[in-house]
């Protein structure tokens, strides 16, 4: 198993991507801490992991709320002994399928503000613990929409959100 004795926090753990990654982490021996706005979806994923012999915990956390993110990360680090992996797969409230010339500023900015905010908050919370322990991996999530600004494809601000999430993932975050 590739992730034995690792503690992994997954934001949006009840969603399709978050759930799939959580199950994969658990399959490889990681203890997974599922965080999200609705406990129901988190519990469903956690139950599946537990019934397959894995270890999963859930917590209601809005990954756009600064205090909630910090407190949850601190609680996980305190109870589990650290955070080794952080992955954020929450929905970033993108508005698509509307041509840019018809799109409102609010709809355009929605995924850009949501995506950059949440990835900043969750990465920062994890990094504080990872620096302390001297190791850790932060994974962010973008999409093919970073290259989708072509005729007939209407992704609104979703592609720019991905580009803005990718930029610090390339440049600022250090693995040690």
């Amino acid at each position: 198993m590739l992730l034995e004795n690792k503690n992994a926090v997954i934001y949006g753990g009840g969603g399709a991507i978050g759930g799939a990654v959580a199950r994969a982490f658990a399959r490889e021996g990681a203890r997974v801490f599922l965080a999200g706005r609705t406990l129901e979806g988190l519990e469903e994923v956690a139950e599946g992991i537990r019934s397959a012999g894995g270890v999963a915990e859930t917590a209601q956390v809005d990954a756009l709320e600064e205090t909630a993110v910090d407190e949850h990360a601190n609680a996980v680090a305190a109870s589990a002994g650290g955070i080794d992996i952080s992955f954020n797969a929450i929905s970033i409230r993108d508005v698509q399928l509307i041509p840019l010339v018809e799109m409102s500023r609010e709809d355009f900015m929605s995924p850009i503000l949501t995506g950059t905010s949440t990835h900043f908050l969750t990465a920062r919370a994890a990094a504080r613990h990872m620096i302390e322990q001297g190791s850790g991996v932060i994974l962010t999530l973008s999409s093919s929409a970073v290259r989708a600004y072509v005729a007939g494809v209407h992704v609104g601000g979703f592609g720019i959100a991905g580009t803005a999430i990718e930029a610090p993932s390339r440049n600022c975050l250090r693995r040690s």
Partner: protein
Amino acid sequence: MCLRPEGMPESWEGVPTEGWSAPTAEIEAQMKARSLLGRVTTLADVGNAAVFLASDQAGATTGTVFNLTSGTVVD
């Protein structure tokens, strides 16, 4: 590090799709046709890549974007 997947038809289950540009089966076919690998990205693809990047096997890797588009986007 960042994961960059293509849209995944598997993840559209239960998602309201009435305003979409085409029926989901058609969008899936278009994505397959556009991809160099002739396939769509799956949730398992993303899980496996996340496991690898999070593991010690990727010990020399940092600060990169992991392309999981099945070749719809080429760097």
